[in-house]
């Protein structure tokens, strides 16, 4: 499909280091018009760093940077934007207090002759653009009131329809459910036909193979492979990514998987008739010790709200919770934590302190177990080091500010917070979001370990794979109501999708 033309963007010998951390070492990268270029690699391999260089976020690096054959040096993201480059960052960067329409037009709102914003026109056009992605949201609603997934789609819409000729998507699908992913891919293909060059980063290798024309693999800051998608397969890509055979990691879950006989160990959490405004309707279930309960559903099905209620962040309108038989009404997250409940939310930003070192992020929720009055930094560091080792967090430096870790490694820190003194009930929202195949596998093993220790674990996810790889029993949540339970029976990706 791709003719031999000169690339619109070419990078030669790019090297970038953050102090002692070499993020990129002599990377060559070329991008052609009308091409979807997939990028894969382990957490911390340097994918986001390279893209941030292209988008003018990182301006200090060595190597040559050519656009249309012209040597260029961006001094800011604004320069990149002027050159027709737009990027959706891995971390959501929306303005939650503005309306949906304003977010779609962030930075170039339509104005009239007097310089006033043309609200009606903006709302209409925003509505049209969102409809192209299959979204039906009120352009005048406040963005922060929408779910993370919707916010992400709106950010994607902004970038896709900004008229940029180079579009970079850094893990855009991590918060999306299958139908949205399909619509996104259809849009990407249409843009490709119009001649846009697209870079697409994802840890979902199947997605990469399906939508991209070319795939580039990163490992440890180096480009280790670049091939046409048609000429490779999942196993080969994983092997290139992690540098060893990846057979064990390429489970696809399209075949039936047999769920085990439900355990009859003690009930840790009993949820009865939980309701919340328009988000949840009469939700009842139990979670047992030594069992992983999966709750699957599309984005916006009420998972987020449910997890927040379990951790005392939201108060339900009706219904009761009981932990080990004792009824609880959590007045705060602190109360939930005291009762033995822990939550890892889907959004890292909510859970982590970016300006604080890794060890403080890990120790914060167990400080009262470590020290009564005075801090014990040495002990905190030791605990953090153990977690960093167990979860293979890179780089393994507990004194580094959290903001300096790659996205996937930050996600690991979020999990690490709860692992030193395991709670009775661990609620995990999208526990493997943003993690590479190897890391996902590590998380699976950790969750199994915890299960063996007798924890009750609830995994909420919009990714069928996540639920299938972890859960012993699966509930399907649809528009706020539990519609199906899979237990002791065969289940597969298709069956889950069908039920949702």
């Amino acid at each position, binding site marked *: 499909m791709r003719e031999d033309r000169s690339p619109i963007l070419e990078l030669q010998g790019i090297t970038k280091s953050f102090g*002692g951390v070499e993020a990129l070492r002599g990377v060559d990268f070329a991008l052609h018009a009308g091409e979807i270029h997939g990028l894969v690699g382990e957490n911390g391999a340097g994918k986001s760093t390279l893209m941030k260089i292209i988008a003018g976020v990182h301006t200090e690096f060595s190597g040559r940077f050519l656009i249309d054959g012209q040597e260029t040096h961006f001094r800011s993201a604004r320069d990149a934007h002027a050159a027709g480059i737009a990027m959706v960052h891995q971390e959501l960067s929306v303005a939650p207090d503005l309306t949906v329409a304003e977010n779609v037009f962030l930075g170039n709102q339509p104005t009239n002759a007097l310089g006033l914003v043309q609200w009606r026109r903006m709302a209409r056009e925003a509505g049209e653009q969102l409809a192209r992605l299959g979204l039906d949201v009120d352009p005048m609603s406040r963005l922060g009131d929408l779910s993370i997934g919707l916010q992400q789609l709106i950010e994607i819409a902004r970038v896709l329809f900004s008229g940029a000729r180079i579009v970079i998507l850094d893990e855009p699908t991590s918060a999306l459910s299958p139908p949205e992913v399909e619509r996104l891919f259809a849009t990407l293909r249409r843009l490709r036909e119009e001649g846009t060059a697209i870079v697409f980063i994802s840890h979902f290798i199947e997605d990469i193979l399906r939508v991209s024309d070319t795939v580039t693999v990163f490992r440890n800051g180096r480009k280790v492979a670049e091939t046409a998608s048609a000429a490779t397969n999942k196993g080969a890509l994983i092997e290139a990514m992690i540098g060893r055979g990846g057979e064990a990691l390429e489970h696809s879950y399209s075949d039936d998987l047999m769920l085990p006989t439900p355990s009859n160990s003690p009930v840790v959490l009993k949820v009865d008739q939980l309701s919340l405004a328009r988000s949840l309707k009469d939700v009842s279930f139990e979670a047992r010790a030594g069992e992983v309960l999966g709750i699957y559903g599309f984005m916006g099905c009420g998972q987020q709200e449910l997890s927040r209620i379990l951790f005392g962040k939201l108060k339900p309108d009706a219904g009761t919770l009981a932990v080990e038989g004792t009824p609880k009404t959590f007045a705060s997250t602190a109360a939930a934590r005291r009762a033995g409940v822990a939550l890892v939310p889907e959004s890292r930003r909510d859970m982590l302190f970016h300006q604080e070192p890794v060890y403080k992020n890990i120790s914060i929720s167990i400080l009262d177990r470590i020290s009564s009055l005075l*801090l014990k930094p040495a002990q905190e560091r030791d605990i953090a080091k153990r977690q960093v080792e167990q979860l293979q967090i890179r780089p393994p430096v507990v004194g580094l500010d959290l903001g300096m870790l790659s996205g996937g490694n930050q996600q690991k820190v979020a999990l690490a917070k709860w692992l030193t003194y395991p709670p009775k009930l661990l609620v995990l929202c999208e526990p493997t979001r943003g993690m590479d195949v190897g890391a996902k596998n590590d998380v699976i093993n950790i969750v199994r370990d915890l299960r063996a220790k007798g924890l009750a674990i609830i995994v909420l996810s919009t990714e069928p794979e996540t639920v299938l790889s972890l859960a012993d029993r699966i509930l399907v949540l649809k528009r706020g109501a539990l519609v199906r339970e899979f237990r002791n029976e065969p289940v597969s990706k298709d069956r889950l999708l069908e039920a949702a």
Partner: protein
Amino acid sequence: MASSETALAAGQRARGLAPFLRSQMRNIAPFLTLIFLSGFFALASPSFATLDNLGNILTQVSVTGIIAVGLTFVILCAEIDLSIASIANVTGIAVAYFTLQDSYVNIANIPLPGAVAILLSILLCALLGLVNALGLTVIGIPSFIMTLAMMQIAAGVSALLVRGQIAYKVPSLITTLGSGSIGGIPWLVIVAAIMLLGGHLVLTYTRFGRYVYMVGGNREAAEYSGLNVKLILGAVMVISAVCSGIGGMLGVAHFGSAQQNEFDTYLLDSIAAVVVGGTSLFGGRGGIGNTIVGLFVLGVLNNGLDHVNIDSFLKILIRGLILLAALVINVYAQRLREKAAE
């Protein structure tokens, strides 16, 4: 792993002086301001750079310093307390109100033993702080508004207690701490130093101190970590009120009288000291060390302007401009740090 750790740490330091300086802007800028101002006044006036005058400066900033200790906690949590000066005032008045005044003082007061008077006064300011805390955390009134109301309430209580009169006597302990000295060093300075040190130790070495920084750094994340954010916010409001109260009692002894509106300038001075010192208005960054530098900047500025010959009305403007500059630096330091981190 240990060696890679040191290598990385070294790398972080070696990543260039410029980014390091940029990330430390918050701490460096106030210090440079202090050195610059001191140098300037030392050259401009021979009476400025003397040991005596250093003593003056220390005494002049002490009451502000005591109040600023608590305010530092509040601002680190990304909240504000506008009632500090009013609470200082009402506490100072209360301690006088509970002390036997000379017969010519026309206040219907309730004389009590000194220790009781002090205790009651501290209870009073703690109570007012608790009201702030409850308004902020239970009802959910933004601290700016809540403490604005408290500013009025405390002023109202003061007015009711003194009814436009002036009281002079306070318990002897307070008199000593506020206006006495030991070995040539005013007790007031010693108390301020002890409280600043205490605040520093609490913030740096205790679990509570860590919580204060974390709540200020990212309140949402603190909540998701299972911290009792409301308790921590409530505690800093009470700490702030009690520090103000202590400052108020000693201030009254230092001035030699207790009356309405005596502490009005201390609101701005305390906020200025904390912010000029580089503690972030967005929370999570800074500390007592910054506040001390801020206090000195303010002290040197106020004192130095008295040593040089300029229009006293112009002085007010100059103070304002320097505060503005410090605020600009405060906001920019935040951005530069974010830049350097990326």
